[in-house]
């Protein structure tokens, strides 16, 4: 189990997986403000929220300067603020969608920033917001340009499967731990979360699974290697089979859902001693 499960999991739900605990999706719709209290942090605006703490750039600078103390200070602040994310495979993603309300399809902010892609309607959206925060999306019109398309659970699952078919990784995003408010659909290098994880070893917690290849079933078609966003899968020339580097595998399961022969299974990380405690 990861430290998030230790802290926010519930043995009665989803075998203790923190993101299958329905309480982590619940939040009040309103709050009263103490006299004289204004808007703070992200509530006041995206820019204010972004400036209210250290950024990933500060973290990268600490790495560049080999400044361990600064690195620890920044990651400490980020953890305390409840920032974070975790990769989940498609089956768990389906279960997640039954635990939250409302569900809104939205434009991806990473693709807008990196590829200048403006997703303008529900047919183009590649990101998902969850929970009552989505009811207040008009507070941040620049973030939600194009609006929000609210969908029911079945529609959300259908959309999620389509994202999986296209080859996107499913990543749950924390908005003040343990509240889960976003469900990103990511690929490398567009997505900030994957990019930070692959290029700098920062950010997302790895999933609770590791991909394993059944060599009797694998015919070496290589589809899984094409779908892997982590550089964890390669085609082995000698054996003419796929091979997983379990230390690089994030357990997203894209290889499994893409395999035409069902030759890849997801093994719980805890059952694989070498990586049982490898979460980043």
């Amino acid at each position: 189990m990861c430290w998030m499960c230790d802290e926010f999991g519930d043995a009665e739900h989803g075998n203790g997986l923190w993101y299958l605990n329905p309480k982590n999706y619940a939040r009040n719709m309103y709050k009263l403000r103490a006299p004289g209290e204004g808007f703070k942090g992200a509530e006041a605006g995206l820019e204010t929220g972004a400036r209210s703490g250290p950024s990933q750039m500060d973290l990268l600078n600490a790495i560049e300067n080999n400044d361990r103390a600064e690195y620890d200070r920044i990651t400490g602040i980020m953890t305390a603020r409840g920032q974070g994310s975790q990769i989940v495979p498609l089956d768990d993603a389906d279960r997640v969608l039954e635990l939250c309300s409302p569900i809104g399809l939205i434009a991806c902010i990473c693709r807008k920033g990196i590829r200048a892609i403006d997703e303008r309607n529900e047919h183009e959206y590649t990101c998902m917001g969850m929970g009552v925060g989505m009811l207040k999306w008009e507070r941040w019109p620049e973030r939600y340009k194009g609006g929000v398309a609210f969908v029911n659970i079945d529609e959300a699952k259908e959309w999620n499967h389509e994202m999986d078919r296209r080859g996107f990784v499913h990543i749950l995003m924390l908005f003040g731990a343990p509240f889960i408010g976003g469900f990103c659909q990511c690929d490398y290098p567009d997505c900030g979360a994957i990019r930070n994880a692959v290029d700098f070893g920062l950010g997302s917690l790895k999933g609770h699974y590791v991909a394993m290849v059944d060599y009797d079933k694998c015919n070496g078609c290589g589809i899984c290697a094409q779908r892997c966003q982590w550089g964890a899968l390669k085609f082995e020339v000698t054996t003419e089979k796929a091979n997983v580097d379990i230390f690089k595998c994030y357990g997203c399961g894209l290889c499994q859902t893409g395999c035409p022969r069902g030759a890849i299974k997801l093994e719980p990380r805890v059952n694989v001693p070498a990586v049982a405690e490898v979460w980043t």
Partner: protein
Amino acid sequence: MAKAKTKDYFKELKKTPYPLFIAPKPYSFDLNEDMIDMLRAEFGAELVADKLATAIKGKSKADTEKAARAFFTDQGKAWMQKTIQLGEEYSDRTIEVILESVDRQGNQFMLWPHVPQRFVEIAYLGTQNFLKVPIILNNAEVLAYRIPQCALYAAIGEKCGKNIAKMMACSEYCMTALDTVRKHVEMEMLNEQVASTAKDGYCEFYMRKL
């Protein structure tokens, strides 16, 4: 040489002040503060406890619980009816987003749990001492919340005695209020109380959609 006087075609128009552009007020996603004040003025914990003290005054020990439960059943209904009335009168952008989604896209699934949740939050924010209602679950199946350090329980203990408070007749207050929400929103749901302040130190309520 004097400048020739030209006709001012806008002379008449200038007599009336030019209407200045007034930007529309930004959306308010918060609850209306006047509404909360009005609810508190009528159903504040101290007021309700005072009324309870009057209702059970002079009653025998056996009749006290019965009278208290009857009192809270009536009060709970009145409390939530007032909440619903005010909640519908004083709208905010958060609920409008839900209702627009239902009206324009036919997204009926948006009504549960958010419409009942709004009434529950208004009711407790207008009568308790916390700034936000601790919502434990809100999804397609359940809406659940917890009331820690209930102001009403404390006020009953103060005005009527701790033993009266420990009877938890006030459960009727919250349960009747939830039943009033159920009838108003016309949804099939099962309401239950799973923890009580007297026993557990907090109250916890579940509204399950059937």
